């Protein structure tokens, strides 16, 4: 590593290409894990003969109930875990990229990732407020 690739403190700069590779690998693994959870849930609903076309919300979303549903081998537990994993992956990517960019000496881009996270948090708060 050349001297100009080092920060004044002497710590090596993060290679952006390496960061992208790591994010890519995490997304691949995360996607397959999420698909596995959903697949188990789909197989469970086929075994339990659950009709998805009933247009009645059979399993409303309750984050706290997911572990109990999974332990009881209820398909909705696996389906919700898979869906939450799917939705959480892009947020995880933003967090990881933000930390990596900060470590790479890019504070403004790291701040952008904080902004994206704030928007997601506002979405969650707004949804809860609207619901109540």
């Amino acid at each position, binding site marked *: 590593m050349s001297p100009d690739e080092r920060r004044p403190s002497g710590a090596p700069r993060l290679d*952006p*290409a390496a*960061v*992208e*590779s790591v*994010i*890519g*690998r995490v*997304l*691949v693994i*995360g*996607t397959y894990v*999420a*698909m596995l959870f*959903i*697949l188990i*849930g*789909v197989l469970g*609903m*086929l075994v339990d*003969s*659950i*009709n*998805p*076309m009933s*247009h009645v*919300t*059979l*399993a*409303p*979303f309750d984050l706290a109930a997911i572990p109990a549903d999974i332990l009881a081998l209820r*398909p*909705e537990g696996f*389906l*919700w875990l*898979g*869906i939450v994993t*799917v*939705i959480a*992956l*892009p*947020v995880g*990517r*933003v967090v990881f*990229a933000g930390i990596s960019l900060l470590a790479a000496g*890019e504070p*403004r*881009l790291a701040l*952008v990732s904080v*902004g*994206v996270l704030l*928007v*997601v948090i*506002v*979405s*969650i708060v*707004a*949804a809860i407020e*609207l*619901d109540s």
Partner: protein
Amino acid sequence: MIAGLILLAGGFAAGTFGSLLGLGGGVLIVPLLALGFGVPLRAAVAVSLVSVIVTSNAGAAVYLSRHVANLRLGMVLELFTATGALVGGLMAFMLPVEVLEGLFAILMLWVAVSMARRREPSERKERVEVAANGPLEPATEPEVDAQVDQPPTAPVTFTDRLGGAGYRIHHLPLGMVGSVGAGLVSALLGVGGGIIKVPLMHLLLGVPLRISTATSNMMIGVTATSSAVIYLLRGEIDPFVAGPTAIGVFLGASLGSRVSHRIDVRILRWLFVLVLLYTAYEMTRKALGL
């Protein structure tokens, strides 16, 4: 049991054809669920958003590993697409369903016209592909436009640092405004929004086409997440509909991206133009209560 398998098959078909035609899955999933299976439109949009995030995650993984997507530019524009998606996600619960159906009919018409005007592969190099959720496997490595500006020898501004090898970013503020619009459309209609983002980045910001497509694909996950959490917490996601559909779309998009270079999609494309026009007609009928 049969209904679950039908949903899975429907998602598989939407994923495969969406990938073959360079369309986002959302454009096909929402009408499939709403018109084909009688799922309420908001619930169909919610399920579509989950499927769109699945394909974006898988696609982004490939694009980032191959260093095709512009992570820096994508992160900046994501801030604005996510903001648009937040507003759109809230608006979706305030607008009457008929208005959403009307907006979806307009989107279908727009996509049909874009597909009909698309040139054949040999002559379309200069044209913007309507690649929304994108393939999971990019067919080739990114092309760098010969006519784009050369990068400055030493990046000095924030905008300069968002460019890549062989190109600079132009009109970033306009790109930010357009990104808000893309996020709004994504959240209201359950699509990826690539139909806006890809031309925006390519034509306005000066990003090479393949990098625009890859970056748009990467951004879709965050964009759709901002509105998906609203649909999730407001109880619009039915896991028993979303599960089989997401699995089907994931498998279909994977297959489509692997066989796309071996299939002549010209006839398929024209067939889909007809399907899209018919879907637009049906959505318009529902919107007008006819």
